[in-house]
């Protein structure tokens, strides 16, 4: 699911960006010197934008175009990286908090770090949700598919007494009894730890 990072390509792009930047820096300084030589008191920005001398404007246009290319390279790199990071985030939800070897080998160190950080954030969030009583937190990643059946069998763990679901029939929850109710009505009881769902 995760492909190897194209490190060579990224390095090439970064090198090209460095080249462009250096070239631009040189040209910019050269134009600056020319302005000083002609003993013009206007500052460099005005020269860049003026239409009086096409020579200077040509230089300015060249610098500007190179700058655009630099930004384009930056955008490409950022797009590539952000797509990879999106994949990594999806991996957490699909494969769980420990990644298989194959995927781990295809990720760079920084990406692995990103994964662990994302894990931490998600775990903290899940822990914070269910902090009432002695409940340990809600695992959001557990039930990713809608439940297969509407009604569930559950076993009562603690003495609870009377429970009235929405259909009005009062049920008495004694310890170790098995009951059969729609799932959504058991949710609160599950959270409180009163009942436990029986999975066949």
């Amino acid at each position, binding site marked *: 699911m995760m492909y190897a990072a194209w490190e060579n390509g990224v390095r090439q792009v970064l090198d090209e960006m460095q080249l462009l930047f250096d070239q631009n820096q040189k040209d910019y300084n050269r134009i600056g010197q020319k302005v000083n030589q002609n003993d013009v008191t206007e500052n460099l920005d005005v020269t860049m934008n003026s239409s009086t001398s*096409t*020579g200077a404007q040509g230089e300015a*246009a*060249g610098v500007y*175009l190179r700058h*655009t290319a630099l930004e384009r390279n930056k955008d490409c790199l950022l*797009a590539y990286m*952000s797509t990879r990071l999106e994949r990594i985030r999806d991996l957490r939800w699909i494969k769980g908090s420990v990644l298989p070897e194959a995927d781990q080998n295809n990720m760079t160190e920084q990406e692995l770090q990103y994964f662990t950080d994302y894990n931490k954030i998600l775990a903290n969030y899940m822990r914070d949700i269910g902090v009432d009583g002695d409940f340990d937190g809600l695992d959001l990643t557990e039930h990713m*598919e809608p439940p297969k059946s509407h009604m569930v069998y559950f076993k009562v763990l603690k003495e609870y007494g009377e429970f009235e679901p929405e259909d009005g029939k009062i049920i008495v929850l004694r310890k170790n009894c098995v009951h059969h109710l729609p799932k959504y009505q058991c949710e609160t009881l599950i959270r409180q730890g009163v009942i436990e769902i029986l999975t066949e």
Partner: protein
Amino acid sequence: MNFLAPIAYAPHPLSLEEISATQIKIPCRTMVELKGFGYLDPSLGVTDLPAQTELELPLWTVRALVKKGYATVRVPHKYGGRYRDILKADPTVVDLNRISPHFYQTGLHLAWLPTKDSEEIAEILPEVFKERLLKLSDSYGYVQGLRSADEGGNDSGTVIKDSHLDTLEKSLLESSKKGAQAMAMYFMRR
């Protein structure tokens, strides 16, 4: 089952779709000299690109040049008058992929550029999309057996061929099909 329910098409500025969509070359004419960029037109063989050169540059370059007034731009051939007439006549049979693989996205960018046709381009994009979307939704009415838009539907009229779709339509079709299949499987388990 893809329960991460992706948004079918979300080209935010840092996405790969944007990069590909702005890569297309469009014709423009430089207004000023571009020092050091003679290599853009190798037939001239000079180091500096002279003013008033006509050449084809990628959209992202042209966008930047036009913003500063360093170039003027013309509508590319594929979005020109003749193709637009074909699209206005019957958008559902047109091979959008051949015009441009990211037809809508690039069209959006083009409509932003100050060409004489930019308004028309902006108008035609939603029209084309509407018609093709209607045809698309007819195309995969038969979810169970449908593997591609080529099959089926011969008795209920023609469908849009898979290869004629552009990226936006393709991803819409994919995620709709997946969603429909997931629904069907879920109901079957009951």
